[in-house]
């Protein structure tokens, strides 16, 4: 199965990259766009199937390494690719 983890800066944390990208978007004339946040995606293949145990393992990985809970939130999707 394929796991896709989406990591994004917490809404309460200043996101300088998002602010810079938003400024660029506005400079292109897209004035209706706001609230830009820049995050990252991490994808990997994993043996097994979508079970609570597997989800626990992915959560541990996301909390410990892939995201920093002080400044980031995460969510993930599991697909059978």
């Amino acid at each position, binding site marked *: 199965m394929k796991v896709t983890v989406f990591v994004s*800066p917490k809404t*309460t*944390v*200043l996101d*300088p*990259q998002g*602010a*810079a990208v938003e400024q660029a978007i506005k400079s292109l004339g897209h004035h209706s766009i706001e609230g830009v946040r820049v995050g990252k995606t991490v994808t990997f293949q994993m043996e097994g199937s979508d079970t609570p145990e597997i989800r626990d393992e992915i959560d541990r990985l996301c909390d410990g*390494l*892939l995201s*920093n809970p*002080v*400044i980031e939130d995460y969510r993930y999707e599991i697909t059978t690719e």
Partner: protein
Amino acid sequence: MKVAIIQFPGSNCDWDAEHSVQNVIGLPAGRVWHKDPLPEGVEAVIVPGGFSFGDYLRCGAIARFSPIMSDLQRFADQGGQVLGICNGFQILCESGLLPGALVRNDCMEFRCLNQSLKVEDSNERFNTEALAAQLTLPIAHGEGNYRADTEVLADLEANNQVLLRYSPNPNGSINDIAGIRNPTGNVYGMMPHPERAVESHHPCLDGLPVLRAFLQPLLQSSSVKLSA
């Protein structure tokens, strides 16, 4: 070796840290590879600056899981003296030895300059009397914007855990924070580089009192002369 300087792949201030401690201050220091154990008898550890593991994922995120970090955690838990400088500060925050996190500078630029800093009265070692009211130290970072939630920040301020504040603020750091310590006062972290300000050919010499303040427990127990 009394002072261990941890080398990660991508550390680049390790030699400067060793030189400043061993040759300028005069305490026996050595570099320790991140896959090796922390040597017996070490009394202080410096986690130096650089770009450990290429700053991949987040600054310090991968170094945090290096084999030596469990030794460092134990060392800190037992009251050992730990100082993280720049990337070292980021690693200590990622590992939970210090609270908060460091994110991209709000200006989106890498800031490399001699930075004016305000000294806080933090404890018996780090205060305006032991150091000075104002210091100048080199900074060189793209991710020095300190962040912590409201509760953590309130605790830091209430316990006088802030060591240094930027004046003016170069990176958007919350409450102008440039350096902090843990509640027990044995783990220190700062974005400025004291090891780059210890000799006459450096732009300033203000790193010397900062390193001495950190190493004070070792200096007091050794025969090393305190004069420069």
